[in-house]
């Protein structure tokens, strides 16, 4: 009698080792957690990277942010303001109902109806004037004005199930949340239930215990490549040290953003490090609104930053290579643009060289042979080694005569103070969520204008009307080649004018067990569905 169980176990072991598709679980340590399971509640990377496992958009961005077909197999612009999306055949939601045009219309309709959203998705739907269905498979989206980025925006707007959310048989689109046939729209807390949080993605929601863990299970009816894991557990471990410890002790299989200084140790313990250039540019912005710049001394009340020669001097005084090598430990790349080439709209401009002599000369020409005093603002917990980079820059600027003090504060304070224009010069970062040049240009350097919504993050208030004109034209040009040329031109104008000073592109790092592989993403997302067992 004793032999049989042993045999049974032995044969079980043999069976499992023969089948490569055995029960496989994945557990990931993330540095933050989603604020809700509602894919339309909080429009921020933290939520998107997790919810992309459950929900999918009409389009999607691949690892280098090129646009790929998602739930729409193809799309085309029939005229400047009309887009036709053809839905993919045979896509089913996790509750079994098929994907139809009604789900897409419902999704777009629900966006303005989501209550208490800290960051609404209306930025993608605000310009949509009408959405209609042609049969079950074709969705026609009309926009108020030409919007070449509509298919890109659709990648950030996950499709929810009209059936699961209790819509009526027909849903009719009307702008500003006045759609017909919506039924009783569930609000975000309801999405903690797997019956409501129904998407088309490779994984289903199993349970979400806030602060503790999020568990996903495999969706067998997924239309694409079969998911690699039976269950995926994601745990928020916000502090870097404990996150590394969780990986080293085997609690989790993979972590995002290990601290750069710990990388040799992690590698030494037999783990794999994967890194790649991200789309995040770290830059310096300079106060250029008027003569009344805050915290500048020794200039008799003038604002030296209005002089292009001074701005150029600042750029030339920075030794980007030293920052990348010594402070970023090689996990960054010196930047000459607002987006790393060869992404859409880049020029291939080289980073400015390190030339303190020429910088001093330029300062003298501009009338500041003895320099001046300035305060450099920076967050100290937002970007990789942000405060250390700012300290290094302050020393470099001081060396050419611009006596620089660093004002480093926590992110929540920094962004508020920056938006109140309290810093004459500040360090910050920008990750282009669209993966192309109009994103940084529109937000960081276009003239600040509340009416048109241009330059919302231009807290240096740089203004170049000629550039604005080209950018506006680009943003309504549907033709990709023409649009790219315009964007290149606009970016070149800003950089030639030293309107903003690029420093470096961050490199994103992941650490994982040897048996895993992950194609690193430029948008810094950690998407569990794209973690695969390594082929050995």
């Amino acid at each position, binding site marked *: 009698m004793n032999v049989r169980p042993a045999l049974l176990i032995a044969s079980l072991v043999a069976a499992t080792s023969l089948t490569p598709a055995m029960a496989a679980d994945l557990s990931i340590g993330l540095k933050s957690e989603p604020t809700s399971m509602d894919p339309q509640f909080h429009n921020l990377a933290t939520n998107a990277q997790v919810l992309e496992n459950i929900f999918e958009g009409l389009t999607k961005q691949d690892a280098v942010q090129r646009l790929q077909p998602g739930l729409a197999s193809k799309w085309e612009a029939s005229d400047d303001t009309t887009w036709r999306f053809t839905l993919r055949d045979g896509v089913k939601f996790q509750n079994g109902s098929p994907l139809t045009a009604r789900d897409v219309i419902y999704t777009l309709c629900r966006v303005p109806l989501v209550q208490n959203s800290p960051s609404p998705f209306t930025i993608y739907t605000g310009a949509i004037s009408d959405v209609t269905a042609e049969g079950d498979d074709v969705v026609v989206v009309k926009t108020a004005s030409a919007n070449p980025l509509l298919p890109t925006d659709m990648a950030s707007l996950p499709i929810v199930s009209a059936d699961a959310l209790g819509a009526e048989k027909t849903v009719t689109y009307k702008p500003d949340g006045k759609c017909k046939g919506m039924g009783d729209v569930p609000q*975000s807390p309801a999405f903690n239930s797997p019956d409501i949080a129904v998407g088309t993605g490779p994984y289903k929601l199993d349970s979400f215990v806030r602060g503790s863990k999020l568990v996903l299970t495999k969706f067998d009816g997924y239309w694409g490549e079969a998911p690699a894991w039976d269950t995926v557990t994601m745990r928020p471990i916000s502090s870097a040290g404990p996150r590394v410890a969780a990986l080293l*002790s085997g609690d989790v299989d993979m972590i995002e953003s290990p601290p750069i200084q710990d990388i040799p140790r992690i590698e030494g313990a037999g783990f794999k490090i994967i890194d790649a250039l991200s789309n995040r540019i770290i830059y310096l912005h300079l106060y250029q609104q008027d003569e009344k710049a805050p915290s500048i001394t020794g200039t008799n009340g003038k604002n030296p930053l209005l002089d292009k020669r001074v701005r150029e001097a600042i750029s030339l005084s920075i030794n980007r290579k030293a920052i990348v090598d010594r402070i970023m430990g090689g996990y960054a790349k010196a930047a000459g643009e607002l987006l790393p080439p060869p992404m859409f709209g880049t020029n291939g401009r080289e980073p400015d060289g390190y030339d303190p002599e020429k910088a001093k000369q330029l300062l003298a020409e501009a009338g500041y042979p003895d320099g001046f005093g300035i305060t450099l603002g920076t967050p100290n917990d937002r970007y990789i080694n942000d405060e250390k980079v700012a300290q290094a820059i302050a020393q470099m600027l001081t060396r050419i005569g611009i006596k620089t003090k660093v004002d480093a504060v926590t992110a929540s304070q920094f*962004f508020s103070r920056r938006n109140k224009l309290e810093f004459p010069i500040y360090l910050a970062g920008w990750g282009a969520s669209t993966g192309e040049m109009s994103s940084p240009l529109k937000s960081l350097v276009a003239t600040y204008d509340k009416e048109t919504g241009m330059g919302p993050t231009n807290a240096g208030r740089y203004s170049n009307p000629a550039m604005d004109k080209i950018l506006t034209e680009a943003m309504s040009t549907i033709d990709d080649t023409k649009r790219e040329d315009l964007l290149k031109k606009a970016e070149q104008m800003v950089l030639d004018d030293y309107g903003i000073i690029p420093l470096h592109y961050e490199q994103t790092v992941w650490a994982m067990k040897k048996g895993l592989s992950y194609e690193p993403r430029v948008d810094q997302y950690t998407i569990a569905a794209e973690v695969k067992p390594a082929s050995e």
Partner: protein
Amino acid sequence: MIVYLVRRLGQSLVAIAAMAVLVFVGVYAIGNPVDILINPESTQAQIAATMQRLGLDRPLWEQFGIFVWNALHGDLGISFVYGRPAMQIILERLPATMELALVALVLSVSIGIPLGVLAGLKPNSIGGRSIMAGSILGFSLPNFWQGMLLILIFAVLLGWLPAGGRGETVEVLGIRVSFLTLDGLKHLILPAMNLALFKMSLVIRLARANTREVCLQDYVKYARAKGLSSRRIVLVHILKNILIPVVTIIGLELGSMVAFAIVTETVFAWPGMGKLLIDSINLLDRPVIVAYLMLTVLIIVTINLVVDVIYSLLDPRVRLSEVDA
């Protein structure tokens, strides 16, 4: 006793109100939560609309007035970040923290008192000296460092215990607890130990000092002279008399353990209230911060009250009505 309780209650309300004002104004002064919560691609109009919806566009006094009015109606506001009632979010996290604090308390008392009494009875022996040396370490090593060291030794090097997080939970009377499952216990040991170390050292020192003092009292000498067994002397006559100060300290410390287990919770990624507070401060989620700290004051005040009552039970000389609160 009733007069005493009513007076205490009144004081507590004043403390809670004062806390609410301070925190409300403090968080307002730090910055605008919309600046960090909103997608950076948003336009100025969308930012303004979000601020208006959260009520952040109004002047401070008006925001505070609305808050007070709602609070009087039992509504502490909706979290900026989660879009759900702040109190609900905090109470979700309360069981995890309570569990951690109570287990830590049990550990510190059950290990601390025997060691302290032992060190007090034989202050010059090797055992007594090493207990005291150990308690100095427990006192002076920073909490987060102890935590990291525990993780390094027991999770990374030895691999006996998990490095963090909360284990499997079961529902008991509608509350999710983890100390009843093996997985849950495994996850609980390290953080509870980390939280308990400091309190344990405190209890050891207190118990030792009191034991030494009580040993010299006449009634102990008399008991010895009477020929009572030393076991009875220690367990009945000494132990009971050193408990009063220990209970006071434990009471106060339990409050602070529940309210400020922040360091331990952060190091061990424990999903309790302390971690929620840190996250909320980083995101300037004012309704959660204010509600959390009000709840904290309430907990500490309540515990103090309970301690006073236990006091009167342990020492019949104490009359609550006479305590000058």
